[in-house]
């Protein structure tokens, strides 16, 4: 009895191992996507945490959302200005408070339901009701959304808001009929759970793709939407798989073996170089509407002294930092150079140790600098920002600062940013605009009402800045608004010096040119990064 069990066990075990060895040796390292297949495999350094378009925010989320959901207006591909999309045209009242949009009448959601004004109203209400994602742009702004008729919708604003059109590019329109039918009890009063439960695993959009499978921090699978109202070219991929992948070694291997067609996101220079050495593997520049910068705490010693902040700006090795990320273009001031509203002719800081020392000598801390250690923090697992922090630390130490370099986990980082005292002196981050206009990134980074969030380590709380910013945002006329943005930028760079702007962020996607053509290979990149990943534009080979 026992012997037979043993024998059986041994037999099972032997077969398993044999099977493993055989399949392991016999299976050629087959590429996951043989050429000719119209499936696209992409990796990103981070994938969205949610597939609910009103809860997500940021470029990684939008990269997926633009394929599944559509918006009233979208950024055009020349300067990111808003162009008609679901809305055919629109009017704005003279006081800038009432906006009315006429919708296309031929749009349907993926389940065939026509997209009408009530879906737009539902979407705006839901976004504000949930309070997540891009809600902060609209919460205090949109007083009321009303359905004028099936294909006309009106927004009543509480104050004039120049960038309203650009801001609307972030509001995805969802299928209200479908969501209402799938609403259960929840936190949002009469709106139940606002369909949040349903959208954890389903999509309710009108875009050319639907999400077929979503695994948080793992992978997202998109499939062509069967009932898309517009036309998707035959050559567009049938299915797209986006995986989350940070490890450079794996990235290299998967791209060269054909398991991946493209790698999106910042890569370390050595990775980039070793990959493009391969036949058919190419890269190019996708300018991001964002930049990399060191946020300096302006309310904590010794960085509360503007001379110290200038010294830090002079002690930054811009060239080497840009090299770490594979040659990024120089940043000029707080607004990315490719973003609408960037001011020309701003002053720049250069890497100059002598000037840095001279600034320190002028500061209030000249005699007792050693008593004020600088805490430089970077976020754990945030790409190579740790290396930038390391480089800066090394130079700052050389000019006489005492440095504490801290790697901080994300949760703790967020917590520390809630108060001045626990916010570090310096931290590195990438900032990407929320909607394609300078006002967005300036508000997000420096306005007094954004302190206490991880996007502002500066604790600027500068009244002059706030006033200038509000005046700019309330200006409806584009040219006037541009002038006011320019004034803001000059003020920041010349007088406040709240941050060190290291480089403009350019994504260098690495892709297998034998597999597909897209905006980058056509030499026509879209200024809003996420629209380069509008998969209907891809042409598989």
């Amino acid at each position, binding site marked *: 009895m026992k012997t037979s069990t043993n024998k059986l066990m041994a037999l099972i075990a032997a077969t398993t191992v044999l099977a493993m060895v055989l399949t392991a040796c016999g299976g050629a390292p087959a590429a996951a996507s043989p050429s000719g297949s119209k499936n696209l495999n992409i990796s990103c350094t981070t994938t969205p945490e949610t597939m609910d378009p009103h809860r997500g925010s940021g470029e990684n989320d939008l990269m997926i959302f633009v394929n599944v959901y559509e918006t009233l207006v979208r950024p055009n591909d020349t300067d990111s200005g808003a162009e008609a999309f679901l809305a055919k045209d629109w009017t704005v009242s003279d006081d800038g408070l009432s906006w009315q949009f006429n919708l296309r009448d031929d749009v349907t959601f993926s389940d065939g339901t026509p997209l009408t004004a009530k879906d737009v109203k539902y979407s705006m209400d839901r976004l504000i009701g949930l309070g997540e994602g891009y809600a902060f742009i609209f919460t205090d702004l949109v007083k009321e959304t009303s359905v004028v008729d099936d294909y006309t919708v009106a927004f009543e604003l509480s104050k004039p808001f120049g960038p309203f059109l650009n801001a609307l590019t972030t509001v995805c329109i969802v299928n209200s009929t479908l969501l209402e039918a799938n609403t259960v009890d929840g936190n949002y009063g009469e709106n139940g759970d606002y369909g949040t439960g349903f959208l954890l695993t389903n999509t309710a959009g009108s875009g050319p793709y639907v999400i077929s499978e979503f695994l948080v921090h793992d992978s997202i699978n998109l499939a062509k939407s069967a009932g898309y109202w517009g036309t998707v070219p035959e050559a567009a991929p049938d299915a797209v798989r986006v995986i989350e992948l940070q*490890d*450079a*070694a794996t990235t290299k291997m998967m791209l060269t073996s054909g398991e991946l067609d493209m790698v999106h996101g910042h890569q*370390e220079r*050595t*990775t980039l170089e*070793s990959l493009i050495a391969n036949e058919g593997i190419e890269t190019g520049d996708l300018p991001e509407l964002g930049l990399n910068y060191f946020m300096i705490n302006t309310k904590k010693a010794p960085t509360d002294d503007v001379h110290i902040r200038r010294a830090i700006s002079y002690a930054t090795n811009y060239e*080497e930092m840009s*090299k770490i990320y594979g040659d990024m273009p120089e940043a000029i001031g707080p607004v990315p150079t490719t973003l609408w509203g960037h001011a020309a002719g701003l002053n720049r800081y250069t890497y100059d140790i002598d000037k840095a020392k001279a600034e320190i000598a002028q500061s209030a801390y000249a005699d007792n600098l050693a008593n004020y250690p600088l805490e430089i923090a970077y976020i*754990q*697992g945030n790409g190579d920002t*740790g*290396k930038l922090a*390391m*480089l800066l*630390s*090394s*130079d700052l*130490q050389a000019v006489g600062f005492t*440095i504490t*370099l*801290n*790697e901080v*986990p994300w949760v703790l980082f967020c917590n520390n940013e809630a108060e001045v005292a626990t916010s570090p002196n310096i931290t590195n981050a990438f900032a990407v605009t929320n909607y394609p206009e300078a006002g967005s990134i300036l508000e997000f980074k420096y306005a007094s009402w954004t302190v206490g969030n991880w996007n502002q380590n500066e604790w600027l709380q500068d009244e002059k800045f706030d006033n200038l910013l509000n005046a700019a945002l309330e200006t409806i006329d584009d040219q006037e608004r541009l002038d006011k943005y320019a004034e803001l930028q000059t003020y920041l760079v010349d007088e406040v010096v709240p941050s060190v702007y290291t480089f403009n962020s350019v994504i260098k996607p690495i892709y297998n040119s034998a597999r597909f053509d897209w905006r980058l290979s056509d030499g026509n990149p879209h200024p809003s990064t996420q629209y380069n990943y509008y998969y209907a534009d891809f042409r598989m080979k």
Partner: protein
Amino acid sequence: MEMQQTLSATTNPRVEAFKKDWYKFSRNPMSLLGLAVVILVIFCAIFADVIAPFPEDAGLAVYMERAFEGPSGQHLAGTDQFGRDVFSRMLIGLRYSLGIGLLVLALSVPFGVILGLLAGYFKGTWLDILIMRFTEIFMSIPPLILAMVVCTIFGNGYLFASIGIAVAWWPWYTRLTYNMVTSLSNELFIVYTELSGVKVMRIILREMLPNITSSVITKMSLDMGSIIITASSMSFVGLGVQPPTPSLGSMVSEGVAYLPEFWWLTIMPALMVVLIVMSFNLLGDGLTDVLAMEEK
């Protein structure tokens, strides 16, 4: 055996016992090798600053112009992404690895042994039940996971990583001591001492503790390796010594991004881990053999 004992009856018995053990230990060349390497490793760790050709590379040093140089006469294990000397960083990293090992043992062994002694001596009482159940709770989670949980809850850094591992490690010493004490309790000399009215504490400290010391020391030597592996696995995911200070585990994990071109960034520190762990294991095995012979 008896011959030896009669011959040396005149000398100090403790010295004599040690001589005997040393004789047994030294007969195994592998144990001797282990001991030699352990001594060498400890020596390197203590004098890392002096031995390391570029001791400042363990701090905030950046030399971009000489990044990614392969192993050479000047840089024995090459340079890393910041142009820092990998060999120097390994030596300093070695110090932190050993330090964590010692710190964990210093925290977990006394705690674990004391609990084990108490539970074992009061076997069958509520104290025994309380301690051993408590021990079991901590034993049911893989040490690495438990240490990571502790580290993320209470904070990151060298000290917290050590505390985290110690929290996961002490139960094994409690278990070991407990088992030894319960078997010892039945031995006649303990029973006699007890009958003669000696205080409980005294029995535990004077009679029981010496009897289990050698086993505990052997286990410590063997555990040193496992602790170093655990600590390096933790620093692999960023828990433990904070950059720029090197630790062997974080050097390996940082280097993985540069494989396969710059292999020395991973292979060298990984080999260092293997070397240390192996030397402690050889030493531990040697001690185990001595102990096993004594028991027979």
